[in-house]
C-alpha cells in the first residue's frame, strides 16, 4: 500500500479544519495507515502549524521556502513534486487552493486524480473506490481510481468527520532542503478583501434565508447573527426585497439569484415556487416555520415547527458554543 500524504492548509499559524478531515479520509483508504502531514510555508507561522499537528499526525513534513510563504499553487506544486515520493497517495482539500493545485500535481507526478470525493469505500486491489456527486449534487456516483502509480485525491470539506483518537506524538521531518529551485510564471500580488456590502450569496455554502416570517426589518439582525456564526450569509425571498429590508442582491428566486449552497435554512418562508426555483444543487434544506402546513416542509429535508424569532437566537447561541466562538 502506497504512503498517504495529507496536504495541510493553514492560516495565521493554525491548521485548517481540513487537516483532521484528511486524516479521517486517509483511514478510510487504509485503516492501518499513518498519513504524513505535508505543510508548506515559511517562518514562525509554519513552525506553529507543524507543532500543532503533532497530536493528530504521526509524521509531519515541514517544507519551508520563502517563495511559498504565500501559498501560490504554482510554486507549491513544484515543491511537492520534488519532496513527495512517486506512487504516493496525496490528499488535498477540495478548496479554491486544492482546485488550483491538485490537477497539475497529478500530471507532474504521473498519478491519477479524483476530485471532490465525498466518501471512500476502501480499496480493491489497485483500485480505490470512492463516491462523488454530479449534476450539482443531484446524483451520486461510485468511481474507481487506479492507484497503481499513485493518486491525488481532493476531499470535499466537511464530508469526512474527524476521528476521535488518543493524541499521537508526531515526528517532525524537515524536508525544506529537497524543495529545489522554484520558478513561477505566475506571481502573487495581493489579496483584496471583500467589502462588507459585497456579499455574493451565489457563492455561499451556508445560507440563512428569511421570508416574510421575519416580520420586521429589525429582526433580520437575528438571522445575520446566525449566519455569522455558521460562516454563511443572509439571503431572502422576494417579499423581503420588495419591502426594502434587504437589497436585491440577497434575493433567492427565479427573478433573483440562483444559489447552490450546501445548507439552506429557510426561516419563516412559505416556500413559493418562484423562490425555490432559485435553489439548485440539492442542498440540505432546513425549514423553520411556525406553520406546520407551510409548503416549504414538502421540499425541505428536515423541519422545525417553531417561531423563528425565538428559535434562531437559541440556535445561534448553540452554534457559537460548538464552534468555540466567543462574542
Amino acid at each position, binding site marked *: 500500500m502506497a504512503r498517504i500524504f495529507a496536504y495541510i492548509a493553514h492560516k495565521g499559524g493554525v491548521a485548517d479544519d481540513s487537516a483532521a478531515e484528511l486524516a479521517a479520509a486517509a483511514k478510510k483508504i487504509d485503516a492501518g495507515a499513518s498519513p504524513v502531514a505535508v505543510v508548506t510555508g515559511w517562518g514562525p507561522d509554519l513552525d506553529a502549524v507543524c507543532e500543532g499537528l503533532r497530536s493528530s499526525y504521526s509524521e509531519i513534513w515541514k517544507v519551508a521556502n520563502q517563495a511559498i510563504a504565500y501559498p501560490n499553487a504554482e510554486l507549491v506544486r513544484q515543491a511537492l513534486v520534488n519532496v513527495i515520493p512517486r506512487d504516493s497517495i496525496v490528499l488535498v482539500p477540495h478548496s479554491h487552493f486544492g482546485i488550483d493545485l491538485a490537477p497539475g500535481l497529478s500530471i507532474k507526478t504521473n498519478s491519477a486524480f479524483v476530485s471532490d470525493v465525498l466518501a471512500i469505500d476502501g480499496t480493491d486491489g489497485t483500485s480505490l473506490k470512492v463516491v462523488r456527486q454530479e449534476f450539482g449534487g443531484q446524483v451520486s456516483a461510485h468511481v474507481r481510481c487506479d492507484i497503481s502509480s499513485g493518486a491525488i485525491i481532493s476531499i470535499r470539506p466537511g464530508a469526512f468527520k474527524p476521528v476521535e483518537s488518543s493524541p499521537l506524538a508526531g515526528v517532525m521531518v524537515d524536508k525544506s532542503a529537497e524543495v529545489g529551485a522554484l520558478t513561477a510564471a505566475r506571481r502573487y500580488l495581493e489579496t483584496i478583501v471583500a467589502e462588507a456590502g459585497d456579499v455574493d450569496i451565489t457563492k455561499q455554502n451556508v445560507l440563512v434565508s428569511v421570508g*416574510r416570517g421575519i416580520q420586521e426589518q429589525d429582526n433580520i439582525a437575528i438571522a445575520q447573527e446566525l449566519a455569522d456564526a455558521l460562516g454563511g450569509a443572509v439571503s431572502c425571498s*422576494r*417579499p423581503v426585497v*420588495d*419591502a426594502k429590508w434587504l437589497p*436585491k442582491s440577497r434575493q433567492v428566486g*427565479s*427573478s*433573483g439569484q440562483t444559489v447552490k449552497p450546501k445548507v439552506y435554512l429557510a426561516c419563516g418562508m412559505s416556500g*413559493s*415556487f*418562484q423562490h425555490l*426555483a432559485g435553489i439548485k444543487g440539492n442542498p440540505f434544506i432546513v425549514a423553520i416555520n411556525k406553520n406546520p402546513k407551510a*409548503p416549504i416542509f414538502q421540499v425541505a429535508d428536515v423541519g422545525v415547527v417553531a417561531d423563528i424569532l425565538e428559535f434562531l437566537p437559541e440556535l445561534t447561541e448553540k452554534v457559537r458554543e460548538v464552534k468555540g466562538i466567543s462574542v
Partner: protein
Amino acid sequence: MLEGIHSPAQSTYWIVSGRLLFAIIPLLGMACFAFILLKRIAPLLRGAPDFRLTQMWARLTRVLKFWLVQWKQPRYLFAGLLHIVLFAGFLVLSFRSISLVMIGISDHFVVPGLSGGIGDFYNVVKDYAATLVFLSVVIAAIRRGVFRPARYAVPSEYGKDHTAEAIFVLALIAILLVSESLFEASAAAFQTQQGLVAALPPLSLAWAFKYALLSTPLEWLQNLHLGAYLAHEVTFFAFLCFLPMGKHFHVVTSLFNVYFAKLDRGTIKPVRWGVSDEHLDQVKSFGVKTFEDFTWKHMLDFYSCADCGRCSDNCPANAVGRPLSPRFITIKARDYAFQHYPMFGKTGNGTPLIGSIYSEDEIWSCTTCGACEEECPLLIEYIDKIVDLRRGMVDDGNVPKSIQKALKALESRGNPYGKMEKKKADWTKDKEFQPTCDVKILDGKNTADTLYFVDSITAYDDRIQAIGRATARILDQVGENFGILGAAEKDSGHEVRRFGEETLFMALRDHNVEAIKASGVQRIVTADPHAYNALKHDYKDMPPVEHISQVLAREIKTGNLKLNPVENANDVYTYHDPCYLGRHNQVYDDPRDVIDAIPGLKRVEMGRCRDRSFCCGGGGLMLFYEPKEDQRMGVKRVQMAAEAGANVIVTACPFCMVNIEDAIKVTGLEGKMTAIDLTELVDRQVSREPANGVKIVKPVAGSATA
C-alpha cells in the same frame, strides 16, 4: 370729404407698395415653410417602410372621430375643453386667414363660397371664434405659467422646462387674434367716426376694440389698420414657419398622423413590413438600433407629439419611478431628428440610440400595458417602438441576465421556468381535483370541440394551477366539451414577442399553431388574457378565441349557469381590469356582468378602471425582469383598491393574481385584503344543481346528438 380707410393693398409701407409687400411676404413665407417641410421630411424618406394606405374608410372615420371631433380630448376635461375651443376656433378662422392674406394683394378677395349671406354669417361666427380662442389662450397661459399642472413638468434628466415654448406659442396666437381684431376694429372705428354703420358682433374682441378706439384720431386708426395687418401677416408666416420647429408641428401633422394611425390593435408590427417570416433570414439587422431604423410613420409620430404629458401621466412604470416616461421617448427622438437633420448643415446619422438618447432600463421597463396609447390624442404609437428597440438590443445580444435565463428555458423547454414538457398537464392530476373533473388531453386519441389553452404560468405555478382547475370545473359545469394540449402546448410566446425575441416567438407560435390545427378543435377558450391576445392577434388562421369571462357572461345570460349568493355580505369587491383583456381587447363588461350576477355581492369601481386601469406590473417575461423602481405597480394598485373601499380584488388574469397577491403581502394587508380570480370566484359560487333540473351537455360535433 369722407374717405374710407385705406386698405393695405392700396397703401404704401415706407417705400414699398402694400400690394407688392403682401405678395412678397406670403411667397417668402411659403417658400420658407416648404423648405422647412422638405428638411423635416428628409429622415422619413430614409425610414423603414410602413404600409398604411389600406382601409381608407376606416381611416377616414378615425380622422372624423379623433381629429375633427377631438374624441380623446375630454379625458382631461378642463384642458380638453380648452383645446377643443382652440382647435374649433382655428378651423373656423382658417378661412379668414386665407382671405386676410389675399386681401393684401386684392382688396375684393372673397373665399369661394363665403360670399353674400353666408359670408356675413361667417363674419359673425369668426369674430366670436376669435374671442373664444383668445380667452382660451389667456386661460391656457395662466394655467401653464401660474398653476403649472404636474404632467407638464420636465424631470431634470430630460433637460430644461418647456413652459417658455408653450407660452411663446400662446403669445403668437394671441398676437394673431389681437392683430386681426384690431385690423377690423380700426376700420370699424374709422367708419363709425365718419357716421357710417360698422357693426361688429357684440361682446366680441373686435367689438371691444372698436369701442376702445372710437375717440382715436383717424390718422392713428389708419396707421393702426395698416400696422395691424402687417403684424398679422408677418406673425402668421413666422408662426407657420415656427410650427415645424417644436411641439406645434402637430398642427400640421395631426391630420396625417391620425389618418395613418395603426388600425390593428393587439398585435405587434412585423420585424420589417414587406418581409414575410420565411424571408426574415435575409434581413441583416433586426429591430431599431439607429434613428433611421424607425419606420416613416414612427418618425411622423415623433413630430406629432404635442408634449401634453397625458401618456406619462397614465404610465404605470412612470408612476412607480422606473426610468421610463413615454412622453420623453417621443420628445427625445424628436429632438434627435431636429439635431441630426438640421435646417442648415450636414445630416448626421447612424448613432446607436441605446446608450445615447435611451437607456436599456428605460426600454425594458415598459409592461406594454397600452395606457399611453389609450390616452394620446394624436394616436401616437408606443408599443411597436419599444418592441422594435428591444428587437435591436436582442439582436446585439444585449439582454438582462434574468431575462436570458427565462428565454433559454423557453427555447429548450417551451416555458420560462425550465419545467419539463411532460409535466405540463400535472395540474390536472391534483388528488382532490382529479375525481371531480377529468380533463381530456387532445393527443390524437381524444378529440374535442373546444381547446382550453392553459399556457405556462397556469400549468406550472403551484398557486396559479388553482385557476386552471377552477376553469376546468366551470367548463365542465356548463357542459363544454373541451380538452387541453398537455405536453404539446408550448408557451404562447406573447411576451417573448414583446420582449423583442421575434425568432423564438415564431418558433413557439408555429409549434402551437400546428398542435392546435392537429387537434381539430373548433374554438379556443383561455383564462389567460396574454394567451388570449396572442391567439387572437399574434397568431393567424386560428379558430375563434374567447376569454373565459366571455363564456361565463353568456352562460349566465342564457341561464345555464346559476350562482349562489355570497356568504359574507360585508365583503366589498372590486374588479381590476387586466390590461390584455380590458384595454387591448376592450372586454370590460363581461367580467363585471359575471360578478354582478352573484346575488348579494357588493361591488365598487376603482377610480382607474376600464380603459384607465392601472397595470399590475406585467406578465410573462416581465415577471423575470428586475426593474429599478420606487415601489411595485401591484402595491399601488392594491392601495387603489383599499381607497375605493374594497377588501376583495377580483381579477381575470393569472399574472395580475401573482402581482396583486405579492403586493397584498408587501403592504402588510394580508388578512385584510384578498385577491380572487374570476374563475375561482365563479367556481366557489356556482350552483352545482343542474339548471332547471336538467344538465345541459353540449353536443360533440359529428356525434348523434348534434
